[in-house]
């Protein structure tokens, strides 16, 4: 049950001598449904609703996140936020002014044609149960699951300098998973890896026949992996599918370009970055084929929006153009602190956290190679799909990824299936080994609901879209 608030009225209840005041109301409801091994294991709905009161005092922002959304509650929150900011203003990292919170007015509604209520709990459970039955293609499937989580989110931002923004989102996360096991040989296949299938869309996504066909394929591939050879070890070419490219982009480009990391805010937690402020406009991050964009405008991608949580209007921008680093992932505060051009990416995980620099949709733009063109260029290598393991150092240099499903490529053709495909490398040498970028036909839109960062910690949704890509001379290896 969502309370309807007059947030402008609440703003007028604030009575502190601050240089700027903003109220950010966030309501979010999650509706998970999951069938595992033929029985329901999750059905429910949970919501969170509160207001972040933020004030600017002598160059320092202070905040109070409160679920008490009465005029008295907001007035009290503002007083305490003021006190926090006032004490800290003698020790500020940076002295901000009102320009850190630009004034904008506007709205955003994520695209959908069928709302959550159009698909009942019973019907959705039926579809998920049928999907489970299609995943369970053999007795060797020891566990299988199908899940859908619908997310409804509403955001309202008003400020003393005239911002008035309303944004509403309907999203979902969807997954199918089958685990095949034979003794300690166990292989899991999913629908896009690690909840990679997540979009801004409505219930129109749930085409039952397509879901069942995919469930059947996933079950069959899990069985196929059980008897597959282990991925070979050595330096060879890698052709990487969009549902793994998304993690490659996320970890070795997105996080590395967050300007708050470069400025050192994250050094105690997520880490620093190998990228330095002076690298923008100079660093050849990857080969000429590499074009990375911050694109909050791509329809249905998971982290599209019109304004960030500081009120800045969001537009599509190149971060890396023809391999050259041209722009950072820095919101208005980071742009002021660093003097760099940035983007509208000042985002918070909810009403109880302050915004920081985050990824939104960070995409690799399509090239002009067909899928067959990419494969035909490989004499000996591995094609990999769907992330299952990820790790990178605190400077975003040395990464290692594991995938669910691989195919050996020999003399320009995909031959046999291989299991446990892994690869490792170092960010800029890896991206400079980008030899082929797939065309729009190979382009896939994915994302993740689980990007962690910040102190206090915040988990946030990001989108990543990419074509299939070819990298040459990569360190590839298999399982134990």
């Amino acid at each position: 049950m969502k309370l309807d608030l007059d947030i402008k009225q609440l703003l007028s209840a604030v009575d502190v001598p601050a240089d700027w005041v903003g109220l950010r109301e966030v309501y979010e409801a999650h509706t998970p449904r999951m069938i595992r091994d033929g029985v329901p294991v999750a059905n429910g709905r949970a919501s969170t609703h509160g207001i972040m009161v933020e004030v600017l005092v002598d160059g320092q922002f202070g905040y109070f996140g409160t679920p008490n959304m009465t005029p008295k509650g907001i007035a009290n929150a503002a007083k305490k936020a003021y006190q926090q900011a006032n004490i800290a203003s003698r020790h500020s990292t940076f002295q901000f002014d009102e320009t850190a919170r630009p004034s904008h007015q506007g709205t955003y509604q994520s695209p959908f044609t069928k709302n959550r209520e159009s698909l009942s709990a019973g019907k959705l459970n039926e579809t998920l149960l049928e999907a489970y039955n299609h995943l369970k293609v053999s007795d060797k499937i020891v566990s299988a699951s199908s899940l859908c989580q619908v997310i409804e989110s509403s955001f309202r931002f008003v400020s003393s300098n005239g911002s008035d923004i309303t944004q509403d989102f309907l999203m979902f996360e969807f997954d199918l998973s089958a685990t095949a096991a034979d003794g300690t040989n166990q292989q899991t296949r999913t629908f896009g890896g690690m909840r990679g299938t997540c979009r801004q869309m409505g219930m129109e996504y749930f085409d039952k026949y397509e879901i069942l066909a995919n469930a059947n394929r996933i079950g069959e591939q899990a069985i196929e992996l059980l008897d597959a050879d282990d991925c070979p070890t050595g330096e060879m070419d890698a052709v990487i599918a969009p549902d793994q490219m998304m993690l490659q982009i996320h970890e070795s480009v997105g996080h590395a370009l967050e300007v708050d990391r470069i400025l050192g805010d994250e050094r105690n937690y997520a880490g620093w970055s190998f990228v330095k402020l002076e690298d923008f406009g100079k660093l050849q991050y990857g080969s000429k084929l590499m074009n990375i964009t911050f694109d909050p405008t791509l329809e249905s991608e998971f982290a599209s929006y019109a304004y960030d949580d500081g009120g800045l209007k969001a537009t599509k921008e190149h971060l890396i153009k023809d391999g050259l680093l041209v722009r950072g992932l820095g919101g208005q505060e980071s742009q002021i602190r660093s003097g760099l051009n940035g983007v509208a990416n000042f985002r918070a995980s909810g009403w109880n956290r302050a915004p920081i620099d985050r990824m939104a949709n960070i995409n690799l733009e399509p090239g002009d190679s067909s899928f067959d063109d990419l494969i035909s260029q490989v004499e000996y290598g591995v094609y990999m799909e769907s992330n299952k393991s990820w790790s990178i150092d605190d400077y975003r240099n040395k990464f290692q990824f594991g995938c669910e499903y691989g195919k050996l490529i020999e003399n320009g053709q995909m031959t046999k299936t291989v299991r446990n495909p892994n690869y490792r490398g170092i960010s800029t040498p890896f991206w400079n080994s980008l030899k082929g970028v797939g065309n729009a036909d190979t382009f896939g839109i994915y994302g993740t609901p689980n990007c962690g960062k910040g102190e206090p910690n915040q988990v946030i949704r990001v989108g990543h879209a990419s074509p299939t890509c070819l990298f040459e001379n990569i360190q590839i290896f298999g399982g134990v």
Partner: protein
Amino acid sequence: MEQIFNKISESLFTQIQNGENLILSFSGENSQFIRFNKAAVRQTGLVDDADLGLKFIANNRTVRGGFTVSGNFDVDIARGKSEIKRMRLEAQEIPEDPFVVLPENSGSSHEIKSANGLQFEHAVDAILPAMDGMDFVGIWANGKMFRGNANNLGQKHWFETESFSLDYSLVTPEHQMVKGSFAGSDWNQNDYESYVKRSRNKLTLMEKKPIKIEKGNYRTWFESAAVSDFLGMFSWNGISEASLRQGCSGFGRMRHDDVRLSPKFSVIEDFSPGFCPKFNSNGEVSNDQLTLIDSGELKNTLVSSRSAKEYGVDSNYAEAGEYMRSPKMVSGELSQNDVVTKIGTGLYLSNIHYLNWSDNAGGRITGLTRYACFWVENGEIIAPIETMRFDDSFYNFFGDNLVDVEDKSSINPEVETYGGRGLGATTCPGILVNDFALTL
């Protein structure tokens, strides 16, 4: 908070009809967060937050609900009634669950730990002077945390604690770093300043130019904080009974092939220090101690009541996710004073970073060195090392390659704040291992 929880609970239980059950789970905090960078305040604020989780069971179906507790009784009761109405309807629509876990009344508990912590308005002035002249970055979290659970059969648990943590890094001009985590309940300025002084001293070891290590296998010492991170992996596709049954646990070789780890390796779930509540979100209370691995042998997995029903085994009242809530690794015989000598030539790793299973079935974990990590030669610390990636199996480093275990354990408090401030701690010693694999 307790009064709010009690009042809401009593009111919502009156809504329950014959044949229905309701379990309420409460989690809340009144917290201060101050984020520091370059020994100055980057962000500062307060968060009051409380969530009520509802688990409604009827007709052999379980439906969940949840909402933010505003503190306004009328608003909260309206939200609760609305949730019960929705859950009651939904329970008519969804398929039957043969493994429904019904609530019981096995007794109530009440634990409040008050503290003489640092007042919110004094935090900045208490913390910053000790960091004078340092490149200090980190997070201060302070305040009360609340957990509650109640069901319509009359069982009620309440846990309330007050604590602080300053999780931080000190950084040299050459970007070498040491990690500190000063946490507790009662604030003592002298203790804090002494702790920071030790961090400063450790940082001087980082002033030497870092050396590059080649990939290969090394004799390696892991400090307690690093061991704690390895043990944390057991809570993710590891020690869970459900994970084992569903074919996604790294413990499969121990369960199916009777593979054993080193006799020097023992782990228990130990609630006796009271770092976190003994009750889970279902209101079930665990024993004070549960042996998981005894002298290298897998003795128990974590079993929730749902897994118990599904797989026909006994529950040990693990949380639904079957993760360790208060793990303790048993200490050994190696004195900290002898560590560098015992390494001989190899690595001294204070912290590790960004772990993940690289081959879950094989127990292989990848990750990176971070913070104060050194090259040791002939029993002497030579210099810090450049960041290295490792990729090795716990069947090796907690198995045949485990040389020795420290004679003292350290408490590594939970400092994560995803969603809200976490509770709990991992108590463990350092370990010395042979042939630890560095790969990049």
